[in-house]
């Protein structure tokens, strides 16, 4: 992990550009590795680049900034950049999660940067020092969430196979895997390719049933038979009805702890 990289996510161009310009002044050493226009891109870019700090707008298409922060789960400091002071925000004053209001005030951004720097200077994951952040995020999600309209949960996937369009029920899916410009859908009746990128599917899937285990793999947990630790950093999954093994990247190994 590069100690001084950042991810910026805002669905509007102007505030994104403004934040980048303000950050160039407030934190000149910081390199912005990803600028994302929605929540699904932000989460995907987080997994790809593993930035040291994330600046997230709260209201974004796909996944909200709060949902992205919940997935980041305290691994790195998160700063929300939002236009309106939702009440629950006030609770995040100096935890692993901070917030700055739009239009961005350079002085307030300076404070947030100083806190993020202090946090980065400490060893260990950010969450370890800030208990209660998960609950605060959940409360904020509840407060903001009721105002949002999100895409309906996916029930059926339509996949073109030759001349026919096949309808695959979502509970028949064993796993999804991104494959160049397509997403491979492996289901009980075979395989199909669809054009919807994996990161976008993620926002429409029930997170209780479908677990993301890798940047490019989402698996229906009912089909997992075992998680096998290969060595210190590597793990893979074996499936009930399929011979292939699916990789579990470092970020998701915490899903399989054993009891």
């Amino acid at each position, binding site marked *: 992990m590069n100690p001084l990289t950042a991810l910026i996510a805002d*669905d*509007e*161009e*102007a*505030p994104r*550009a*403004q934040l980048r*310009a303000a950050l160039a002044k407030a934190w000149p050493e910081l390199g912005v590795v990803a600028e994302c226009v*929605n929540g*699904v891109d932000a989460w995907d870019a987080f997994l790809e680049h593993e930035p040291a700090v994330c600046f997230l707008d709260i*209201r974004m*298409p*796909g996944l909200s900034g709060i949902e992205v922060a919940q997935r980041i789960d305290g691994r790195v400091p998160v700063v929300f950049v939002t*236009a*309106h002071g939702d009440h629950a925000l006030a609770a995040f004053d100096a935890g692993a999660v901070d917030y700055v*209001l*739009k*239009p*961005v005030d350079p002085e307030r951004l300076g404070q947030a940067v100083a806190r993020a720097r202090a946090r980065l200077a400490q060893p260990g994951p950010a969450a370890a020092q800030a208990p209660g952040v998960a609950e605060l995020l959940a409360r904020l999600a509840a407060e903001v969430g*009721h*105002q*949002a*309209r*999100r*895409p*309906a*949960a996916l029930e059926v996937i339509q996949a073109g196979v030759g001349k026919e369009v096949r309808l695959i029920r979502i509970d028949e899916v064993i796993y999804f895997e991104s494959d160049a410009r397509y997403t491979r859908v492996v289901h009980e009746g075979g395989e199909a390719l669809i054009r919807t990128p994996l990161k*976008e599917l993620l*926002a429409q899937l029930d997170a209780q049933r479908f677990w993301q285990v890798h940047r490019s793999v989402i698996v229906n947990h009912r089909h997992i038979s075992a998680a096998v630790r290969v060595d210190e950093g590597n793990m893979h999954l074996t499936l009930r009805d399929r011979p292939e093994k699916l990789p579990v990247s470092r970020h998701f190994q915490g899903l399989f702890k054993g009891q």
Partner: protein
Amino acid sequence: MSSRAERIDWSQLWYPGPKHVFSEAELDRAGRDLPSRTLVAVLLANIALMAMALLQAAPPELTARLTALLAGLVAAGMTQGLALWKRPTRSGLAKRGALLVGLFWLLYFGISLRLTDPVQRRWIVSLCAGGLFLVNIGLWFVVSFRAHQIESRLRERDEHDRALAMAHQLAAAQIQPHFLFNSLAALQHWVQVKDDRAAPLLDALTGFLRATLPLFDQRLLRLGDEAEAAQRYLAVMRLRLGERLRAQVQIDPAAADTLIPPGVLLTLVENAVEHGVQPSLHGAEVAVTARRQGQVLTIEVSDTGVGLPASAGASEGVGLANSRTRLQQAFGPAASLSLQPGPSGGCLARVHIPLQT
């Protein structure tokens, strides 16, 4: 409804007065005032005049007794009337009615039977009977009047509170802080970096604010004027969202002059952008149409965005409920506002107004 109004309530015959008993809270809200001085003064003056006339006509040897009797009746009537004014119930009225009947017999046996002169006796008995009857009627009138007064005051206050709550919601809905601050953030940035979009954004935002601020002061507004405000809103959002928002507005000239409650169209357009277009990963289209066929006005706002959530009915916001109420206040129960899934995904909001001539 009519059969209910026409049914005769026979219980009023033996148990007259209002059926509803006001709670302490209701009395606190609308029933703690005393009768006005004017009312009391006029009442006492009338009684004094009647008493004087009566005493003039009565045999002179009865003057002292009649005066005492009259004073007693007036005092009893006034105190009991005041008690019923404070708590106008038919049980209170019935108790006092029974007491008055008892009092009559007491007076009858106590005084009038001892009088030997038939003239004097007739005077005393008829004054007792007439006076007590009048007091009873008076008390019944106090209870009915007072109950009616408190009821209508309560109704008035309820309506007032409802109107206040609605005005409050409207004021809050009128300009979303999110919208304002996000627009200002974009404007600030574009001014700083001298982007060409700064000037048109400032124009559109100014036009929107100018059109919106006086919008809610009016009870009814030309649809064309409100469409103008909606255009400005869409212009701001188009600048901010770029390619993600595509919008078109088509208002028939015949529809533009129709008067509608303010904010209805704007709320629908804001909803389409905020809940349809903005949450959509690849942007969406918003189409606004209004047409008038004869005496029917139809407004449609459709978007091709993320569509309605699975539990649609439950999650309708305050804005929509508010708009629907105001439409029905203005045009009666036949006016409707409905949300449904759009023909090609997204959401379609339709306002249907049969206009009275």
